């Protein structure tokens, strides 16, 4: 790899590329959001990946799936293949552990990550990823978007950073019992939600920016958690109002000691 390749990002720190190259990143979901995340991680120079996606490219994905081409829909190319091609095309020596399925069916590789990006559709899926990240001490960065209403439609989205020892997505007011219950009542199916490419790009870029800051500390600012809200109609990204007067006194949902494999206790 030529030294000049990352010259324009040398402000991240003298050892930033080594830090980036050593950090294993996970991406759960290589669809609209995940494909943006993967593309940016590869451009930045990440070398170690764990990627999960069990879907194949369909016509309806081509409006937003970065890296997918018309022929991929006809060929039903696995999204995992699109992700690998993106990474290897930019980082030929990258180590990619790819799994064409749900991370829950093969969770151990995910635990090698230091940062996991959740690019999934359901609140339950987000919650399960956060649980895994807390138990195995990994930063979790969640992104998601939605379109609702009609006159006019409103594009909304979020970027949430949940780090072990810090406030979780429930503490920050993003995940609630009501959201999970409402989704469960719909049998956990998110349905065919409207999705477009540019909000996913904003969300993914913001999420990757958080990750690069975590790895390199180039901003020198404390960062234990984050909940950013995206207004796709105005193009604004703002800190969630739920954090405005938020005082963290320990996370009651993920006590510090609850790490590692669950152990069965005889009663």
């Amino acid at each position: 790899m030529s030294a000049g390749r990352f010259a324009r990002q040398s402000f991240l720190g003298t050892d930033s590329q080594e830090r980036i190259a050593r950090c294993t990143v996970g991406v759960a979901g290589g669809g609209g959001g995940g494909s943006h995340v993967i593309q940016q991680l590869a451009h930045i120079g990440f070398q170690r990946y764990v990627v999960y996606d069990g879907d194949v490219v369909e016509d309806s994905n081509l409006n937003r799936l970065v890296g997918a081409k018309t022929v991929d829909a006809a060929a039903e190319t696995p999204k995992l293949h699109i992700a690998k091609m993106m990474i290897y095309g930019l980082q030929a020596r990258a180590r990619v552990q790819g799994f064409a399925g749900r991370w829950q069916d093969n969770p151990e590789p995910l635990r090698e990550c230091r940062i996991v990006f959740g690019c999934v559709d359901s609140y339950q899926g987000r919650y399960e990823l956060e649980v895994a990240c807390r138990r195995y001490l990994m930063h979790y960065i969640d992104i998601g978007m939605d379109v609702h209403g009609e006159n006019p439609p409103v594009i909304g989205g979020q970027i949430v950073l949940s780090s072990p020892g810090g406030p979780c997505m429930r503490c920050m007011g993003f995940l609630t019992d009501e959201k999970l219950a409402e989704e469960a009542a719909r049998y956990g199916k998110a349905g065919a939600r409207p999705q477009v490419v540019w909000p996913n790009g904003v969300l993914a870029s913001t999420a990757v920016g958080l990750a690069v800051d975590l790895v390199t500390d180039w901003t020198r600012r404390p960062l234990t958690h984050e909940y950013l809200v995206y207004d796709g109609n105005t193009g604004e990204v703002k800190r969630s109002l739920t954090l405005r007067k938020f005082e963290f006194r320990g996370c009651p949902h993920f006590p510090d000691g609850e790490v590692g494999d669950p152990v069965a206790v005889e009663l």
Partner: protein
Amino acid sequence: MKVEIRLTGALHREILEDLARRHPFAAERVGFACGRVGSLVDRGILVLLNRYHSISDDQYLEDRTVGARIGRDAITWAMQAVYHGRPAHEGIFHVHLHDHRGATGMSPVDGREIPKLMPGFQSVGREAVHGMIILSRDHGAGWVWLPGHLEAVTAGRISVIGKPVGIFEQETGP
């Protein structure tokens, strides 16, 4: 076998701050960290540290042949921690600081003295993983004793999940 030790940035900071304090007579400080195990692929082991115990000044013994020697009360605390951690298979790790920057490793005294603690820990917490960790200011090294094993396995890396993310990899030979 792949072994990694992982802890949060806050815990790493707490440990460094404690160990960097000057002791009235000992040349260095030691402490104990507790940790549980997570499984990795190919029977790899992830040791997840979840708390740290500082040893009070009066629990050190004067001994100029070593950097720090701790007394019966400190060892008793560690054994009790292992005992109480048995239901969760929680092990204990002897931690100390080599006060420099860059990669670090066991000194001859470390290699001779600290492993003597492990059989005792293993006898109480048979199903837990125990070990020792040596930190420098910005790096570290670790060794774990797996259940039923007399010899240590070197941890390939120590990861600090904070900001920045710290990944202290052991250099491998040619």
